[in-house]
């Protein structure tokens, strides 16, 4: 079972795109709102080396942005 963290902000459309994609594929994830949690925001920047949302942490694989293809690859969903 992979653990997935999605670092996002509530207003970010690309974040919604990623979360909708995971929900459609019935993949569970932890939704971390970095707008509400400053520590989580720092953790995200440290992990990704970037200041941009969304960031996905899929068992240590970091994906920045709504890169659905990279997400599919990381989750072996094909495509």
């Amino acid at each position: 079972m992979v653990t997935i963290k999605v670092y996002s902000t509530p207003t970010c459309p690309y974040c919604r795109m990623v979360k909708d994609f995971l929900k459609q594929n019935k993949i569970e994830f932890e939704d971390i709102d970095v707008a509400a949690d400053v520590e989580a925001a720092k953790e995200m920047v440290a992990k990704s080396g970037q200041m941009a949302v969304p960031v996905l942490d899929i068992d240590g694989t970091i994906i920045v942005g709504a890169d659905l293809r990279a997400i599919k690859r990381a989750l072996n969903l094909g495509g």
Partner: protein
Amino acid sequence: MYDLIIIGAGPAGITATIYAARKKLNFLVIAKNIGGQAALSADVENYTGYQYITGLELAKKFEEHMKEFKMEVKEGEEVVGVEKIDGTIKVKTDRGAYESKTLIIATGARSRTLDVPGEKEFKNRGVTYCATCDAPLFANMDVAVIGGGNSALDATLQLIKIANKIYLININPSFRGDDVMIEKVEKSDKVVTLYNTKTLEILGDKMVTGIRLEKEGQQKILDVRGVFIEIGYVANSDLVANLVELNRRGEVVVDEHCKTNVPGIFAAGDVSNVPYKQIIVAAGEGAKAALSAYEYLSRLRWPA
């Protein structure tokens, strides 16, 4: 062969789909994402029927409305080429090829870049083009917003709630934006506005640390952690640049019926030369383009 292919699903493309569906056209929608730039606006207060709605919510409403109708949508598919051969429009994507009698180009626009040193290097490392997405990451920091129109004012208003100090850097002597927004920005004691000021360089090591500016021949450096670039848009017309006429700004030239210079090819929304890049304008143009395509198809069937 389809009657119609619509490329893009922002306000223009989505509205075109609704009109095309109600005309029972056999059509296909190809879009990188659904919602387009509309979803990136923070607050929308000028879309008739909504006194206030966020861009994201409005985009969701558009999508819901679109999905009321049965239609074929290729979401996430990227168009790589468009041509017209012997009256048939051929659209090639990264995953397939499709043919149609008519085409609506509704590919919208993307953020214009400053083209200064440091901009590319520090993209997503302090430099951002999406205030709606990334503003919360700059809590209690000093940031700069570059631009002089509504997008820059919108970004500044979002940052007032979040950042410590906001330098609003305008290359012009005044703002061209809505007076309501200008007033709100001027009222805030968090905002320092610099007019007639050019951005020369974005500085940093791992992340952005500052910007170098020039005003009246004098250079100075401001320490900031974030740089929000909001200097307007460039039409996403690269795909059709060799197919239809573009103006000097790279926008697809259309007439009042959304017709391009190529019969059967229409354009709508921010990609076109229609003035005022507004969600409501784009939506209206999408409706016109679909009706215009319908009329064109009717003439193909029953030539006068």
